[in-house]
């Protein structure tokens, strides 16, 4: 049965301060709501998901992070009943999904990677229709639809056809449709892909609010910064296999004791990098772009000698700044996938974090 409406975020999206500050992750250890064991799925010769095992705690915001084609959507489809696993078990709130998928679907809200509401219906009618699919009575679903439209800043567009909405508005309404029945578990597949920065910020704030109100959130994304800001725990999935699951804090701990400084130079960053490595073999140097050099060391980096070396080589150094190690670096180190490749994928899809 749908959960009571206690789990709704209370603030309007227009009203909230979208500071984008990393949030304090929630993890409530009073049981697992998602238990996945040895999940596998093939499409012909292609192994989409292979021996995937993980659990999600009640009230947790769990991130599923990986590049395109890693198996994120296939996994979420199996969890939500849109695909059948070849092997493995899925339990949602202790319900065995292979035996009783419809009982599990009562407890979950799903926001797919595409905004797939009815183009000819208005925003209000779309929400009411989605509410009816979960058995909400007419008066209840109308009240809930109005509340969500108001909360998402879409009240003025409530009577307009979904087809006429902007991408960001479509995404927000699709998320609203996913939570119309106030589900205790919410699956979000790439919720901010392809939308403008302001809308993406609003949506991330909303996800954080939902989680703060008690909703367990399973989030797939290939935006590493998004996962870092929102999630309590993260699973890295590559080529259908989970390569690491840990809390964001534990993952970030791996970068402790490393010092990174980035220099902005006029040009020829790769050649300058080679010069630094030759002169200071204890330092690790990478040319991030043609005009940026990143120097990494287990000891604090002394900037003066490096600037002098660069200037002696004819480079103009316009900036030197300390870089806080990010989850992206952890991801690259664990998965072996270059962050540039992830960024290319982002660029292909559009939008950003």
């Amino acid at each position, binding site marked *: 049965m749908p959960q009571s409406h206690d789990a709704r975020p209370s603030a309007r999206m227009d009203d909230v301060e979208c500071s984008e500050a990393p949030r304090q992750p929630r993890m409530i250890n009073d049981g697992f709501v998602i238990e996945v064991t040895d999940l596998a799925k093939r499409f012909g010769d292609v192994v989409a998901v292979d021996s995937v095992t993980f659990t999600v705690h009640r009230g947790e915001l769990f991130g599923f992070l990986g590049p395109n084609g890693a198996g994120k959507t296939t996994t979420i489809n199996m969890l939500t009943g*849109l695909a059948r696993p070849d092997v493995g078990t899925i339990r949602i709130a202790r319900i065995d999904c292979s035996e009783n998928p*419809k009982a599990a*679907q*009562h407890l979950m809200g799903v926001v797919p990677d595409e905004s*797939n509401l009815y183009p000819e219906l208005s925003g209000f009618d779309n929400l009411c229709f989605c509410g009816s699919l979960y058995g909400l009575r007419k008066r209840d679903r109308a009240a809930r639809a109005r509340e969500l439209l108001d909360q998402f800043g879409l009240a003025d567009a409530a009577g307009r056809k979904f087809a006429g909405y902007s991408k960001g508005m479509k995404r927000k309404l699709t998320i609203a449709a996913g939570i119309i029945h106030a589900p205790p578990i919410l699956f979000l597949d790439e919720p901010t892909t392809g939308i403008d920065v302001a809308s993406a910020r609003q949506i991330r704030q909303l996800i954080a609010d939902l989680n703060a109100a008690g909703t367990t959130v399973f989030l797939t994304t290939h935006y590493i910064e998004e996962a870092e800001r929102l999630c309590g725990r993260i699973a890295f999935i590559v080529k259908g296999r989970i390569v690491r699951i840990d809390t964001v804090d534990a993952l970030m701990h791996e970068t402790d004791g490393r010092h990174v400084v980035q220099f902005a130079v006029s040009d020829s960053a790769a050649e300058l990098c080679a010069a630094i490595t030759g002169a200071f073999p204890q330092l690790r140097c990478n040319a991030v772009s043609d005009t940026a050099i990143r120097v990494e060391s287990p000891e604090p980096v002394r900037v003066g000698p490096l600037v002098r070396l660069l200037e002696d080589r004819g480079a103009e150094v316009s900036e030197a700044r300390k870089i806080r190690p990010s989850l992206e670096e952890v991801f690259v180190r664990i998965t072996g996938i270059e962050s540039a490749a992830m960024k290319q994928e982002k660029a292909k899809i559009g939008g950003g974090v």
Partner: protein
Amino acid sequence: MNAWIAFWNILDNDMRSYYLKPPNVSWGLIFPLAWTGMFFIRSGSGLDSVAGLLPGVIAVSVLFGTTSLLAVTVTFEKKGRSFERLLLAPIRLELLMLAKTAGAILFGVVNAFVPVVLAALLIDLAGVDWWTLIPAVVLIAISSTFLGLFIAVSVSEVFEAQTFSNFFRFPMLFLCGLFFPIEQLPIWLRPLSYVLPLTYGADALHGSIRHAAVMPLPLDFALLAAFCVVLFAVSLRNIKRKWIV
């Protein structure tokens, strides 16, 4: 109870989104009128031919109305992924697909009565056995709609749905005994006639309007019902196999 809320709202949404849209309403009226006019002109025997042509025109109107709309709307929703939203809802697939097809069945029944109303203006229909005609129309509408569902599940593009529909519809029209008695067909074609649901629907319509059924009416109804069950079961199996992969 909750599942029925979903059922009625899926039906209501389909009626408003598809079946009651002006182009489809006009299709539902003009198409049977066009068939009626065409066959009357072709027969050339004036009002005497109305009763003889009525079963054929009713069946054609239902067959084309239901299969066209259902195959296209389901394929359209599958393509636009809004159908996924229905599959994610906590309602049994059987009930979901019954809700999804109910609109087309109603549309088909309404289609069927357009030529009946027209005929009532031209000839005396006092001899029509309505207790046979109405269940025959309903069963033809259900079997045609489930044929449309079978087609929708078999294709992935909207244009494929239309093409594939015609693959079934046109042979069915000429082989089901509506316009040419099955006995006049070449002997090697006759077995094909007896595996078509419309053959039994056409026979029941001939029985109700002209009292000229070839087979016993209970047999017609039983076989039509069996076709409905088989087409629905096969479509459900295909949905589970192809759409919940």
